[in-house]
Structures are given as C-alpha cells and as structure tokens.
C-alpha cells in the first residue's frame, strides 16, 4: 500500500539526515534509529517489508531497538526482527537470538539457531551458560534444526546429554538440515556429532562408520560441519572422501558443468579445518587436479596424529 511509504518518508528522511550527523549527535542519532526501526516495523505490520530491507543496510545499529519486536504477537514481525539479527555478526545480537530460540514458531527457532551457528564464534557463545539453557529449552520444545543440535555440543553437562538423548528418541527417522541448500540428513546423525563432541564413544563409533560407509548426503554433511568434528580418527576417516569422485553439485549453480565432486568439497573443508598450507588457491566452485588432491592428503598425514 503506497500510502504507508508516503506517510513514513518524512520520518525516514529525518532519520537519514540525523544519521549523517552521527559524530555530533550521540543520543539524537540513537533516537533517529529508533524512529526508523519503528517506521519499518509499522510497515511490516501492514505486510510491507522493503523498509526492513533498507534498515538491514545499516548493519548493527538497529540491534538495541529490536528486542520488543521479538515479543510481537505478529509472527511476520518477529520473523523480520530475527532476520535483521541474523544478518550481523555483532555480539549484541546473540542474547536476542537466544530469546528467539524459544519462539512459538519452529521456523523462527530454527532461524535463530542458524544465525547463532553461522554468525558467532561458538567458543565465545559457550561462555554464556544462559545460551546453553536456551538451546536445551529450544530442542526440548521440538527444535530439531541442525544448527541448534550442533551448538549444544559446546555446552557439556548432563542436561545437554539428556536433551540430545530425548531428541534422538523423539526424532525416530526424522530429517533435518543446516542451511536451506545443505544436504538433508537424519536428525540422529546430527545428534551423534554433538554427542561425539561431548565425549560419547558410542556416538563417535557410529560417526566413524558413517564417515567411511555412509550415504553420500551424510558424508557431504559431515564435511560441511567439520568445525564440530575434533576426533582425529574421524578426520582421518573423512579424508577418504578425497578419493571419492562422485558428483555432488553445489558451489556453482545447478546445471553448471563440470559439477563439483565430493573430493573437491573435501579438499576445501579439510584444508580450512586443519589450516593446511596448500600451494594452490582454494575455491568453492572448481575441480581440483589429482596433484592438488594428493598434496592435501600428504599435508594431512603430517598435520594430524593417528
């Protein structure tokens, strides 16, 4: 509805002007951002989200003003607030995302977990015990998003182990994913990754089997979450994917030839995970030569104990 935009345009212009005078106007600038946030969410309530997108271009400035919108009864308003928080790496977003982990909507719980997983250092997150509690509550509430389950691996304790065990029992053969385009895998596999990280030998043994003999989608998923895999025997097992030339796509758009292979994903994932000093440029789209793949295999042997 065009009238909304026209109605708020003077407010936005004023806000933009105030922002340009930032060094001189501390508190006033804060007020201007708050006004802009309110205008964007007023439009969102009417089903117009372009002002939210414009707000997103301001980076982290809006974060301090987003809290109330996470409690809004309108799910689309809460979704827009979570999306803005998900677009920043600013530390101030983490506690707000933690609140969204127990939203009534599973979509929002999953988005909050993914934002925490992708945008924030998990070791720093692990220093916030309240986040561990929020993650457990989220998972117990039915959040089976891979990001929530993987982050639980950073919060040791019997409560976490109980939440993971309950999820396995509840999930049966349910599937989940990390990002929209990453492989869809059993919830139980993701739980095993966290359990292994927390020292569960049985889960580690199951992961070892999947790493060596599992379906293509599951081995691909393991390579995409290599950050969470710390056991050397698992990393060595996954290094066998350097020999796997099955085409997987990804990296380049669908239909683009030549397609990427599992071994190409393995080169990038293992090199980044182990900080291997390779002498070629890493790329998420190209195929690597046999010599390049061999060099990764050789560097791994020296970088990781057996």
């Amino acid at each position, binding site marked *: 509805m065009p009238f909304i935009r026209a109605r708020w345009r003077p407010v936005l212009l004023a806000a933009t002007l105030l922002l340009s005078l930032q060094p001189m106007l501390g508190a006033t600038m804060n007020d201007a951002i708050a006004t802009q946030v309110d205008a964007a969410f007023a439009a969102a309530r009417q089903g117009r989200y*372009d002002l*939210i*997108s414009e707000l997103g271009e301001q980076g982290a400035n809006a974060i301090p003003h987003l809290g109330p919108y996470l409690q809004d009864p309108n799910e689309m308003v809460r*979704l827009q607030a979570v999306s803005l928080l998900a*677009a920043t790496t600013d530390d101030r977003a983490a506690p707000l995302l933690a609140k969204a982990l127990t939203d009534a909507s599973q979509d929002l719980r999953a988005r909050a977990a993914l934002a925490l997983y992708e945008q924030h250092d998990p070791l720093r997150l692990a220093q916030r015990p309240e986040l561990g509690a929020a993650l457990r509550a989220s998972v117990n509430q039915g959040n089976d998003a891979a990001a929530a389950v993987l982050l639980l691996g950073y919060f040791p304790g019997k409560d976490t182990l109980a939440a993971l065990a309950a999820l396995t029992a509840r999930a049966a053969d*349910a599937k989940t994913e990390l990002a*929209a385009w990453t492989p869809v895998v059993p919830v139980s596999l993701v739980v095993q990754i966290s359990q292994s990280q927390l020292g569960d030998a049985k889960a580690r043994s199951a992961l070892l089997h999947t790493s060596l003999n599992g379906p293509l989608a599951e081995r691909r998923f393991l390579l995409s979450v290599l950050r969470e895999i710390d056991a050397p025997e698992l990393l060595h097992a996954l290094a066998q994917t350097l020999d796997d030339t099955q085409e997987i796509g990804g*990296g380049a758009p669908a239909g*683009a030839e030549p397609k990427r292979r599992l071994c190409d994903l393995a080169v990038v994932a293992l090199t980044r995970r182990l900080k291997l000093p390779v002498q070629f440029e890493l790329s998420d789209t*190209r195929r690597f030569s046999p010599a390049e793949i061999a060099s990764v295999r050789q560097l791994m042997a020296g970088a990781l104990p057996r």
Partner: protein
Amino acid sequence: MATATRALQKGHTGNDVKMLQELLNQKVPLPKLPQGQKLKEDGIFGPKTDAAVRAFQLMKGLKVDGIVGPKTWPALGVTYLGPGATPTPPPAGVPVFEQKEPKNGFDGTVTPPWQMVPVNGSKTVILKNAANLTVVSRNPAIATIEDIPKCFIHGGRELTIRGKIKGQTFIDVKNGAQILASLEVAVKNKKPLKVTFNFVEDKVGNKTKRSISDVDTWVKGANDILFKQANVEVIKQSARNVKINQDLGSVVRFSSHLPGVAAKEHEWDVVVAKRDNAADFNVFLVWEYEQDTTPAVDNVEAGTSGGNCIFEDNIGYLTHETLAHEIGHHLGVDHPAPGLDLLMSPSRTDQRISKEHANIMNP
C-alpha cells in the same frame, strides 16, 4: 474418450497441447478463433491458442482464465486425470488412494502413495474400492482422518487428513486387523522464504526489460506450486532497482568453475554483492545470463547458488514456474534424472513436486 494428465496454459508444449489445438479447431467457430483462422496444430501453447481457449471458455460459461484444467478439459470432451493420477483403474476390490486435485502435494508414483499435509492444515484425498472398510490414522497425534459424508461422482470416498504436529505417519485401510492399503502422510511445518527481487541495470545502460509491477503475480504463481505441494511459502521481502557500477556486457556470466576462463568474465559476484541481507533468497533480474563455455549461445535461463539467483529476460517457461524451479534449487534440490517430468526437471511440461523433492525442500 481421450484423457489428459495435466492442466495446460500459455507456455506449455507437447502432444496434449496439439490435441487441445485440434479440439479447439473443431469446437470453436472460425469467426471466434484469432484472426478468423484455424489454429496451427504445432503443440505450442502460444498467444493464439490462449485466445482460442478463452473464446471457448466464454462460449461454455466457464471461468475465462486461459487455463485448460479440471473444468475446461471435460467441456472439450476429454477426461481429466491430473498429474500423478493412476490412469488405469485398480483391480476390482483393491482399495486405492488417489489425488483429489493435481499439484496439491500427492505423489502417486511411490509405494505407498504419499500426501503432504501442513501442520494445522488439511488435505483431501480420494479413496476408491473401500466402501465398507475402516480407515484409521496410525498416529492421530500427527494426523487425523475423517470421511466427508457425501456421495461423489467418482464413486469413491473422500477423506480429509488434518495435520497436527510435524511428523510422518500412515493412513491405513483395514478389514478387521488386515491392512489392505496405506497412504504415507508427511505433516510439515510452514517454511517461509523471504525473497527480494532486484531489477539490475549496469553502468552502460544494459538492463532487464522486466517490470517491478509483475512481482506480485510471480509470487502468487510460485506459491500455487510450492505452498500447495511442499508448504513452502514465498514472501515478497522487497522489489527494487539495483545499479551495478560496471559494464557487464551483453551476457552476465558465472564462470569461476570453468578452467581457462579469465577471472574478469565471472560477473556473478559483483551482481550478488548487491543482495538484500534481510531476505533469504535474492533474485537478480538481468537481460541475459549464461554459466557455460559458450556464452554467445542462449541455453540457460537462470542460475541459483548460495541464496542468490540470476534470472534472464528471455525464458522458455512461465516466469513464476521458473522462479519456483530456482527456489527448488535454493532449497537443495538438483535436477532429477532424465525422463522425469517434474517442476525440478530442466526440461518439463509439468509443475509437480515429487515426495523426494518436497522432503528436501522442506524436511
């Protein structure tokens, strides 16, 4: 009587379009056909066939929308089975589930057949050859089932399945303790997808011919495909003009995967850098796009990777259908094996989403 297994509209091609053109030539008086001439029976549903369909719909008092579907096909004397339907009747006495309407989340090509049902929503299926049999849900906490107490022209029963919580269960047709047939039911949460449409113009004036005013129509069309079959809801986040401060030439390219192609040819990154970070998926509308070693040959319509899509002006399919196809890629579905005619097939006549693909798009 002839049968049709899909609804047709402008942009479709195939033998069923040819059959449609033959029938229109027979049933629509010559003065009412475009330019007073018989249609060329070439199997291509173009503007003239569209006009003839609308003339026929007007004659018959049908909704004039140019779509030859469940009402227009029978008016032409064709039995409409719909995609995924079983064209041959089942053996007498064997209960069988069928779709109530096409493109509504039913996959009859798998065993047992499969139906997507939204959490807090419902879907209706047809059950034939089961007049006096008991129908139960294995897990009513996930999905419940109820009969619609009416007589139907198809002679079977109609069952409403209501989704309660996310999960998978089965609807069983039983005779005492014996299960005679089952329907797998996947109850899915709604998956909202916020999409921003970026209308691109480069530094030297190359720009898309598309119009921002069409976006709402594309979103509605994509939702008719994705929401009904996979419970994925496309939401327009924003539609805006974006200016790229570079001459992108006559073709915008993705080429970083191609050995030997100069790095400057790979223009994808400079375009998608303009993405809207508040959106889940950014569509960049450009004049021409290619992703292979022969950029002068126009054989690609769009490319999707990493939450971004570049989408050219000149496509061979309906815009909303290609949009739904590219969103399918964004949600993790690759092109299926040759021979399948699905939304995700690179060459297609159908917009059907299979069980396998729906479960990837919205696990």
